């Protein structure tokens, strides 16, 4: 188990959570009974329609998953399932410290164990930070409705929570290059690209995307639960050294120092969010 993991939670996520609570007048967390029910429904579905990954079935992948669980510690208990799909995707739902992770088979076929550690870590990050307790779509489906402004903040929170989860992904895989490769494969479907090329590609595309979001009259780019991949890359690139230092547990990680970096990243993502809002209003 690694100490201070909680400090990896993206500060912007916390700030947006406070805004949502203020706007809605309460903290709309999933009720205990409903959360348990959702977990049970999902587990039944996974046991019925997917395949549980055990040490007997896929020893290397199971070991990688266990190593990620060990990093998190805290007595979490959850199994890993695979379902046939050509899409690179994974998901998790948690209730208290129980959860199940589902990965699509394309990930197991095409990703290296280290890259899978990033994926597993990302999903476990959602568990660690209890993102399942706060269901954006549940709130949006409220028959009384929420304002567009509140919906905007809810999606921002969702995107910020993905940044927090990516950080745990990097913590589990241990190398920025591995996380970058996983993101690059997810976006492009391509393998075997030189690391320098991938980095240059992401950096340039981030700059163009940031400009595009600032200037284009795109009314739908804000309706996203996940940040666009070049933005995820940028958020990881800036936080990577501190996350690697935290993983080393050799005293190189400073909570105070990381908060300063975290605030810079929040400033970048908030500027993108606000630009998107301004573009919609114009």
């Amino acid at each position: 188990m690694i100490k201070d993991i909680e400090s990896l939670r993206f500060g912007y996520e916390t700030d947006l959570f406070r805004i949502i609570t203020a706007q809605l007048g309460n903290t709309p967390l999933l009720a205990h009974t409903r959360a348990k029910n959702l977990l049970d429904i999902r587990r039944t579905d996974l046991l019925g329609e997917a395949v549980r990954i055990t040490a007997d079935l896929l020893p290397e992948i199971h070991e990688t998953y266990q190593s990620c669980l060990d990093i998190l510690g805290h007595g979490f208990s959850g199994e890993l399932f695979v379902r046939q799909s050509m899409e690179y995707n994974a998901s998790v739902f948690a209730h208290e410290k129980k959860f199940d992770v589902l990965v699509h088979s394309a990930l197991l076929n095409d990703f290296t164990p280290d890259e899978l550690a990033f994926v597993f870590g990302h999903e476990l990050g959602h568990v660690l930070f209890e993102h399942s307790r706060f269901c954006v779509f549940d709130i949006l489906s409220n028959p009384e409705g929420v304002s567009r402004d509140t919906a905007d903040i809810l999606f921002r929170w969702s995107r910020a929570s993905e940044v927090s989860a990516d950080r745990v992904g990097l913590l589990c895989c241990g190398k920025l290059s591995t996380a970058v490769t996983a993101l690059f494969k997810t976006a492009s479907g391509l393998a075997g690209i030189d690391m320098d090329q991938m980095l240059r590609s992401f950096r340039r595309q981030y700059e163009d995307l940031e400009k595009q979001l600032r200037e284009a009259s795109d009314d739908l780019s804000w309706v996203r639960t996940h940040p666009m991949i070049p933005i995820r890359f940028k958020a990881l690139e800036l936080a990577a050294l501190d996350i690697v230092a935290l993983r080393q547990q050799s005293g190189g990680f400073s909570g105070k120092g990381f908060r300063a970096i975290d605030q810079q990243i929040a400033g970048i993502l908030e500027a993108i969010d606000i630009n998107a809002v301004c573009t919609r209003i114009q």
Partner: protein
Amino acid sequence: MELKQKGAEANVGSFKQLMVTMKWTTAADFDLAAAYEDKNGKQGLVYFGELGDLNAFPFMQLSGDEGVGDTGGDNEEVMRITQLDDMKYVWILCWDYGKVQDGAAARFNESDVSLTVLDDKGTSHDVTLDTGDMGNVALIATIDNSGPIGAKLVNSSKAGTLKGLKKLQDLIDIING
């Protein structure tokens, strides 16, 4: 890996990012700084007066001054480098800026200044300042990214004396002297 002696070097390979942590416990008001030369020959300095930027050139940034006050104890300053690709050299420096302004000598030879250099793959290298030279600015390590096969980290321990810092070239002269 430890680079305790001047001239010791390590091939640190194709890392993309570095976190440089300078630590000392002796009572001295040291500051961490980095001078650089990029692959187009552009030179610059990141120090407490120009903290740098992680998301724009020079893609390096100094943390806040955490060793103010000339006090003993666990003093630490951190420099993060998020993109090294376009840099040819980065020189990691320690100075006592108060002494630099006066042109007086700092207490390097009584100090226990050391660097820990952590790369983005989690490999760390320790570099110890190894000089008896008098001065108020010490070059501790050089990140030499000029070669085709990846960067080298070199213990460059040496000290020199500045009287004020009117132009960057004065510092570069000490580095290359």
